């Protein structure tokens, strides 16, 4: 119906209740977990033929099924983003098999997990704003329920409600922005928008539409005045969901802003990008100062996601091909680093039952593999040279210097130095020689949790030492995004 990976995901999502019934009959929750991990892995494998098609230059497809017409546009950027989403999705699903095994309603959890990931893949594959909005809401509605899913209730219902109200207001604002673009151009496909606005003079309404869309997508991308839902929602969710929310869901907002920036907002780019630049600096400063004050390790990681969103926005605001390569590379690397960090922290919380950093003293002796993996992912988040976070931050800083935005490059460097202070505090507590009460007698995480953690950490090291293949992929994605207008006009 749509592109192959998306078809598979939607089919598997629709069939997931059957796996749930089977799991309930046989009283083995692992069945639906294995089912969803296998479904995501199958979709990930099916990206390969789509990748070949995108390399050969086949990008658009108009799908017409009866009364329903949808417009998909699968270019290199869409392929790269969907690969990132599915990679982290497989890791989170495998991790959940063990993490959610004591949860009675876990078949429901896996259905929601699959539908959230299908929504994200749909957003990046859609070729017009209507399809994008429908998949956007599919992703959002599943994520509201997943945030409220954690055991023990407590603050998760309140966090989910806050998330729902803010993100819902953002979605309504996005719809308003889309309607203004539609009113001006009469079309919603990205190619049509690029043609209608690409070489036109800016009018008052395009300014209004660009600001309204920035507010709407900015809520999801946690741009700073609109970020207040993020620390609550990401810390209240179950750990695999926190990994997905921080690692990929908020990046979908950045993707949408990038896409609109090089289609509909082409006439207002000289005025729009400086606004994004100022917001990006504010975002990274807030995202790196607030974690210093946190005692809860999941809130610390959630705030540091805001800081990393600041780096990605900085790459977007520079607007050159090198800077966008850095942004997309950082989306990939951030998914690996933050995914691994949240999964490790989840394993530690699973064993000691506390989220406070103070309770984790001496954990490195009791859970050596988890603690080593957490240390590697935190070093990557700081931007230490042999690991992958360094490569993408370096690319963004280089692009800033090349475009004579020296202050922006220095802001990114200073912020990653600042971020070292709170990441290193976590590592110092883990390495303390005296074990706290909660840590006494714990053993390392179950192997099903260690498996995705080790895979992600392995990729952090591999893509830090050998970034060429991903760099090349992201470079082609950025080139495809920037030259969309000239592709359409020919």
């Amino acid at each position, binding site marked *: 119906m749509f592109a192959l990976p998306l078809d598979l995901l939607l089919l598997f999502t629709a069939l997931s209740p059957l796996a749930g019934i089977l799991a309930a009959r046989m009283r083995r929750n692992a069945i639906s977990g294995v089912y969803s991990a296998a479904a995501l892995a199958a979709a990930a494998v099916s990206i390969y033929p789509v990748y070949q098609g995108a390399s050969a230059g086949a990008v658009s497809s108009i799908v017409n099924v009866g009364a329903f017409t949808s417009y998909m546009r699968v270019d290199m950027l869409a392929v790269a983003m969907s690969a990132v989403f599915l990679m982290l999705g497989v890791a989170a699903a495998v991790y959940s098999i063990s993490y959610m095994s004591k949860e009675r309603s876990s078949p429901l959890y896996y259905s929601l997990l699959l539908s959230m990931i299908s929504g994200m893949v749909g957003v990046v594959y859609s070729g017009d704003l209507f399809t994008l909005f429908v998949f956007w809401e599919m992703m959002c509605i599943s994520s509201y329920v997943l945030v409220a899913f954690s055991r023990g*209730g407590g603050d998760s219902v309140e966090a989910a409600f806050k998330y729902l109200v803010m993100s819902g207001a953002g979605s309504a604002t996005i719809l308003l922005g889309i309607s203004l673009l539609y009113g001006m151009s009469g079309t919603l496909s990205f190619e049509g928008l690029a043609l209608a606005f690409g070489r036109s003079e800016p009018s008052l309404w395009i300014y209004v539409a660009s600001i309204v869309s920035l507010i709407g997508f900015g809520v999801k991308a946690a741009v700073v005045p609109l970020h207040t839902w993020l620390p609550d929602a990401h810390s209240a969710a179950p750990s695999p969901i926190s990994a997905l929310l921080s690692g990929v869901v908020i990046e979908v907002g950045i993707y949408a802003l990038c896409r609109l920036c090089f289609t509909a907002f082409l006439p207002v780019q000289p005025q729009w990008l400086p606004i994004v630049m100022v917001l990006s600096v504010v975002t990274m400063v807030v995202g790196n100062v607030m974690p210093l004050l946190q005692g809860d390790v999941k809130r610390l990681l959630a705030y540091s996601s805001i800081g990393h969103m600041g780096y990605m926005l900085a790459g977007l605001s520079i607007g050159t091909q090198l800077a966008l390569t850095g942004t997309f590379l950082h989306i990939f690397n951030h998914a690996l680093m933050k995914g691994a960090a949240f999964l490790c922290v989840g394993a530690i919380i699973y064993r000691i039952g506390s989220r406070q950093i103070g309770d984790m003293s001496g954990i490195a002796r009791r859970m050596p593999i988890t603690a080593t993996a957490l240390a590697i992912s935190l070093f990557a988040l700081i931007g230490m040279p042999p690991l992958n976070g360094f490569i993408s931050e370096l690319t963004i800083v280089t692009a800033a210097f090349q475009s004579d935005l020296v202050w922006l490059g220095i802001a990114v460097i200073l912020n990653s130095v600042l971020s070292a202070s709170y990441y290193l505090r976590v590592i110092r507590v883990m390495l303390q020689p005296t074990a706290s009460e909660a840590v006494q007698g714990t053993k390392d995480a179950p192997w099903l949790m260690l498996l995705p953690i080790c895979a992600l950490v392995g990729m952090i090291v591999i893509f830090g030492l050998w970034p060429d293949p991903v760099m090349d992929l992201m470079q082609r994605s950025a080139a495809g995004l920037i030259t969309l207008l000239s592709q359409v006009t020919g």
Partner: protein
Amino acid sequence: MGPSYYLAFVFALWAVGIYCLATKRNMLRMIFGLEIMINAANLSFISLATGVPGFVDPLAHSIVIVSIGLSGGVSAVAITLVVYAYRQYGTLDIRELKRLRG
């Protein structure tokens, strides 16, 4: 009457929704504010569908129908969360919720 009057009304409605979200303490009233914002966007689509005189673009109307369905889904999830919060805390006041959590 051109679409600009409608658009002025749309932005007024959007501001009412934001005001409602920012000032109301009752969780159900906040959901109403959310619905008002979504309806403002729907109205904007409908009013902009008549760009060419004598012709109404069906694209805008199909978007509005889908959007109404999606907003129904959002409200269902929101009301479920309100029911859970009420069972847990015995109040619908969002500020009380923060205090009770402590």
